[in-house]
Every structure is written in C-alpha cells, then in structure tokens.
C-alpha cells in the first residue's frame, strides 16, 4: 500500500517528463553551490572593504535577489509548474504587496518632518 501512490507517481513522472515537479540531485547540487557562491561574494566584498557606499548596497541587494531566484528555481521548482501558473501568480501578487509596504514605508518616513 505504501508502494502504490509512489509507484504510480514515479511511472507518471517517467512517462511524459522525467523530472517534472521533482527535481534531480544535480539540480539541487547546482542550487546549493550557487547559493554558497552568492553568500561568499557579499561577505568578501563587504568585510574586506572591496566596495563602499552605494556600490556595496548594490552588491548586497543584487546577490540577495539572485539567491532568492536560485532557491525558487532549483529548490522550490517554480519553473516546473504546469499551466495555469497559479503558484507564480500568487508569488508575484505577494511580492507586489511586500515591495509596496517596504518601499512605501521607507519613502514616507524619510519625507516625514515629524519623525526627524
């Protein structure tokens, strides 16, 4: 009985696309290595004072966003989703709200005369 659902899943997976929605060891390993590299880059750049000011902010944010994308693709398999892509749509909707909250808060508080 424990074999049954697993067996039919496996067969279905091999039938039309071998790694749909499952991922392979290789893709997890690539994702892991990319994440490590994207963590080491900002660490070295900031702690060794290779970049400063705005350039440092750009390096930090770009590597963080890249690592977010790596996790979404290689670990959460967002690109292997069947159409209609409801997972992607809800994610984009959520990100729009998060960016509005964060950017809106920063914007209004830096222009708020009472807070200073």
């Amino acid at each position, binding site marked *: *009985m*424990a*074999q*049954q*659902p*697993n*067996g*039919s*899943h*496996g067969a279905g*997976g091999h039938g039309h696309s071998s790694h749909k929605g*499952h*991922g*392979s*060891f290789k893709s*997890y390993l690539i*994702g*892991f290595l990319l*994440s*490590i590299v994207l*963590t080491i880059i*900002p*660490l070295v750049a*900031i*702690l060794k004072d290779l970049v400063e000011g705005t350039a*440092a*902010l750009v390096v*930090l*944010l770009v*590597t*963080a966003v890249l*690592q*977010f994308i790596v*996790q*979404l693709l290689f*670990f*959460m398999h967002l690109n292997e989703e069947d159409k209609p892509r*409801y*997972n992607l749509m*809800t*994610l984009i*909707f*959520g*990100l729009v*709200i*998060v*960016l509005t*909250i*964060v950017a*809106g*808060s*920063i914007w209004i*508080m830096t222009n708020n005369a009472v807070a200073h």
Partner: protein
Amino acid sequence: METTFLGRKRKRLEAAHADIGGHSAGGSHDEHHDHESLKTFGFWIFLITDCILFGTLFATYIVLRGNTNGGPTAEELFQMPGVIASTFILLTSSFTSGLAVLSMNRGNVKGLIGWLAVTALLGASFITLEITEFVHMVQAENATIGTSAFLSAFYTLVGTHGLHVSLGLVWMVALMIQLARHGITAVTKRKVNVISLYWHFLDVVWIFVFTIVYMMGVM
C-alpha cells in the same frame, strides 16, 4: 478516556490511509492527487501571506534601524562569525531538506527520515546559535528589546524568523514519527513536500535578514 480518543483518531487515520490506497488501486487516483496538490497550493498561499508578514517587519526595521536612543548601534553589537556560521548552517539544511524529498521520490523511507533528521539537527544548531547571540546581547551588552526602537525592531524581526524555525523543528519531528509509522503514502508525501517548501522559504527569509540586518548593519 485519553486512550479511547487516541484510538479513535488512529482508526480514522488508518481508514483515511486505506481509502487512498484503495482509490489509487481502483484507478481514480487523479482525484486524490488533485486534492493533495490543492492542499499544497493552499500552503503556498500561506507562505505568500507569511512573506507579507516578514515584509512589514522588514519595513519597520529599515525605518527604525538608526534610532538607537543612545544605546548600542548595529555595528557595535553584531558579531559576524556566529552570523556567518548560522547562515551556512541554514543554507545547508535547505539543501538537505531537498535531498529528503529526492529520497522520498525514490521510495526510500530510511533515506527520507535520515535526511529530515539531518535537516532538523542543522535547524536546531541554528536556533542554538541564535539564542546564544540573543543571550550575549542582553547580558553582556545590556541591549534588550526595550533599549531602543532599533533593538525592538531587531528582536521582533529576527525573533519571528527564529520562532518559525523552531515551529518547523517540532513539525519535522512529528512528521518523522508519522513516516516511521505509515511509510510513504499520498498524505505523508504531500506533508513532506509542504515542509520542504516551508524550510526553503525560511532560508529565503534568512538571506534577507542576513543581507539587510547584519551585512548592512556592519557595512
């Protein structure tokens, strides 16, 4: 009293598992598959709302991080070696939870429980490091949640993430017990997929905590 309740609950669970087995054998497997994937999608929506929760805490932290009220600043307070260690620990645990899912897809229950155990151990070391950091900050630096607006926002943001990881640990242990009892069924399979998504999500949130709180704090 309690045993009868547990007994009843167990019987219901067994019936549910038998039901799934029977249906997939009967050929109407798709219906159950749809039901389980609908539950996974429901969990995905929860994760998105959790993103919004963390978004508000990040916004609060970014706005308040300069308001130290004469207390210690981020640069004085943060000790990067511990933070770097916990970052790599959580990153590795995100990878091992992926390996757990791979073992499951191969039908390997022992590998699945083993990788979940490794993930839980890494998560536990992450939490231990975080608690050590907080205790050090409160006792040695006198930096409590009431010291300044910066520290209130800091403890709320980092503490909420820590609570999520702790909750994930309890959940993971419960799931390992279920897996040992029932093996890989349609239900436990969905649960493993969902906890793995949750764990990757916590790693993603930590990337931004690491970048925005710690790296920008010591920059």
